[in-house]
C-alpha cells in the first residue's frame, strides 16, 4: 500500500513536471520574439525591450526555465505585464468567488447526479429511466453560456427572482451569497451532472445484476438499503473515477461561467488577460488549474482502496 502511494506520488510529480515544461515552452515555441508578441502590434522598441528585460528573455532557455520553476515552487508565478502586480497576489484576490462557485457546483452536482443515476438504474427501462437518459444527453449538448443566458433571462430578467449577475462575498451573509450562486452553479454543473448520472446508472446496473443483490432481496432487505448499502457502495469506484475526470469540465466551465455571470474570479482574470495579452497570468492560472486537476485525480486513485478493500496494490 505504502509502495503504491509513493509510486503514485512520483508519477504525479512527473506529470506535473511535463505540464510545467509544456506551459513554459509554449511561449518560446511561438514564432518571433515573445516580448514583441506580448506587447502587441503598436509597441515601440523601448517597450519591447522593457518587457524582455522584465521577463528575462535574454538569458539562455535553460536558465529561464530553472528560474521560472524555482519561482513556481516557492509560490512565485511571475509579474503581470498589465498591472505589474505579482500573479499569485492577483489570483489570491480572485480565488474566493471561484472556490465558492466550484465547491457548491461540485457538491450539488454529485448529490443530484448520483441520485438520478441510482433512480434510473432502479427503474431501468421505465419512463423515469428514459427521462433521465434523454435529459443527460440534452444537458451534455447545451453549452454552458447558452444555459447561463437562458437561466438569467427566465429567472432574473423575466421573473425577477434572482440577481442578474455578479457575486456577493460570504461575509455579506450566507443567503445573499447563495442567491448569487444558484444560477451559475446550475449552468456550470449541468454537463457534469449528465456525465456522472450516466456512469452512475451503468455502474449500478452492473452491480444490481450480481448474486448478492438477489440474495439481499430474497432475505427481505428493503429496497432503500439494497440500493444504498449493497449496490451504491459497490458501484463507487467508477463513479468516483468519473467525478475526478469530470473536474476538467468544471475547470473549463468556470472560465466561461464567470464571464457569463460577471463573477470576479480566477476565470474572469484569465479572460481579461486575453485581450491584454498578459501572458504571465494565463501561464500562472493554466498551471494552477492543471495542478488542481492532477491532485484531484491523485486523490481519486488513492481513494480506490478505501472504497473497495479488494483493490490492493
Amino acid at each position, binding site marked *: 500500500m505504502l509502495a503504491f502511494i509513493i509510486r503514485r506520488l512520483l508519477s504525479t510529480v*512527473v506529470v506535473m513536471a511535463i505540464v510545467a515544461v509544456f*506551459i513554459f515552452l*509554449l511561449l518560446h515555441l511561438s514564432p518571433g520574439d515573445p516580448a514583441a508578441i506580448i506587447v502587441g502590434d503598436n509597441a515601440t522598441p523601448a517597450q519591447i525591450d522593457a518587457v524582455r528585460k522584465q521577463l528575462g528573455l535574454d538569458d539562455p532557455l535553460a536558465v529561464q526555465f530553472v528560474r521560472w520553476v524555482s519561482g513556481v515552487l516557492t509560490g512565485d508565478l511571475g509579474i503581470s505585464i498589465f498591472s505589474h502586480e505579482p500573479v499569485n497576489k492577483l489570483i489570491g484576490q480572485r480565488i474566493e468567488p471561484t472556490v465558492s462557485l466550484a465547491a457548491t457546483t461540485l457538491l450539488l452536482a454529485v448529490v443530484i447526479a448520483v441520485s438520478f443515476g441510482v433512480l434510473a438504474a432502479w427503474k431501468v427501462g421505465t419512463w423515469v429511466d428514459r427521462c433521465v437518459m434523454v435529459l443527460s444527453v440534452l444537458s451534455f449538448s447545451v*453549452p454552458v453560456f447558452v444555459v447561463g443566458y437562458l437561466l438569467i433571462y427566465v429567472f432574473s430578467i423575466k421573473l425577477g427572482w434572482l440577481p442578474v449577475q455578479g457575486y456577493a462575498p460570504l461575509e455579506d451573509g450566507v443567503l445573499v451569497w447563495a442567491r448569487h450562486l444558484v444560477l451559475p452553479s446550475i449552468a456550470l454543473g449541468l454537463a457534469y451532472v449528465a456525465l456522472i448520472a450516466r456512469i452512475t446508472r451503468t455502474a449500478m446496473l452492473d452491480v444490481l445484476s450480481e448474486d448478492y443483490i438477489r440474495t439481499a432481496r430474497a432475505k427481505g432487505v428493503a429496497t432503500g438499503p439494497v440500493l444504498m448499502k449493497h449496490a451504491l457502495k459497490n458501484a463507487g469506484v467508477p463513479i468516483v473515477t468519473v467525478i475526478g475526470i469530470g473536474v476538467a469540465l468544471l*475547470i*473549463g466551465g468556470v472560465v466561461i461561467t464567470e464571464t457569463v455571470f460577471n463573477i470576479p474570479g480566477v476565470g474572469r482574470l484569465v479572460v481579461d488577460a486575453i485581450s491584454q495579452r498578459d501572458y504571465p497570468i*494565463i501561464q500562472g492560472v*493554466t498551471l494552477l488549474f492543471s495542478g488542481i486537476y492532477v491532485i484531484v485525480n491523485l486523490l481519486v486513485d488513492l481513494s480506490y482502496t478505501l472504497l473497495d478493500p479488494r483493490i490492493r496494490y
Partner: protein
Amino acid sequence: MVDAAAAQGTLPSSRARRGARAWRFVRRNPTLVFGLVILGVMLLAALIAPWIAGDPYSMKPVQRFKSPSAEFWFGTDNLGRDVYARTIYGARVSLAVGLSVAVLAVSAGLVIGLLAGFFRSVELVVMRLMDGLMAIPAILLAIALISLFKGSVAVVIVAIVIPEVPRVARLVRSVVLTTREQPYVEAAIASGTRLRRILWRHVLPSTFPPLIVQATYICASAILIEAGLSFLGAGTPPEIPTWGNMIASSRVYLARAPWTVFCPGIALALVVLAVNLVGDGLRDRLDPRIARRM
C-alpha cells in the same frame, strides 16, 4: 415483413424491399438516424448558405433590434444585421472546425497510439507526455496558444486538436495492446510477416470501430470549445459570424433582444446534440463493448 410477404408468394418489388429494409434500419437505430437527419440539414444549410440566406455582414442601423418577423426570420441585432443569415453562416465555421479537429486529432492520435502500442521504448516516453498534456484543461491551453498566435480559424483548430490527441492515442494504444494478443496477430508475427504489414493489415482495422465513435465525440466537443473560445474573445476574429462571436457581441442586449443570443445558442445546442446522438448511435452499432459500459 419481407419474409412474410415472400412466404405468401407475393414477391415484393426490389424497391419496396429496399424501403422496408431502410425503415427497419430507422426503427432499430432511432438515435443514429435522428442525429444524422439534423446534422444533414445543418450541413446542407451551411453548404448552400449563399442561396438561402442574405448577406451576414450587411449593417442597416435603421433596422436595429427588429424582433423576428417574416422579413427577418430570426430578427436583427444591435448593428441591424440579419441574425438568420449570420446563424446560417455560423454553421460553416462550427462544422468546419468540428470536422477538421476530429480528422486531425484522430489521425495524430492513431499514429502515436499505434507506435506506443507496438514499441515499448516509444510507449514509456510518449504516454507520459500524453498524461501531461491531458492534465492541462483544453480551454486554457487553447487560450494560451491563441494569446500567443494571432487569432484565426486555423489556430483555433490546432489549439483544440492538441488536447484531444492524448485521448485518441490512449484509446488506440489500448486497442493495439489487446489486439496483439489475438491468435491471428500472433500467427502473423510467428510466420514472419513484416511489422509494417502487421500494423497495416491486422492491427489497424481493429482500431476503426472505436475510433469512429471517438471521432464523433471529439467533433461535438470541438464545436463546443470553438464556440466557448469565440465567446470569450479568444477564438476566431470577431468580424467572422460564428455562433460564439454572435452571442458574445449580443449578450449585453439580452433583455432587449433575446433572439440575438438564443437563435445562435439553439443552433449550437442542436448541432452538438445531433453529433452526440450520431456518436451514441454509432457506438451502439459498432462497439457493443463500450455501449455496455456507458
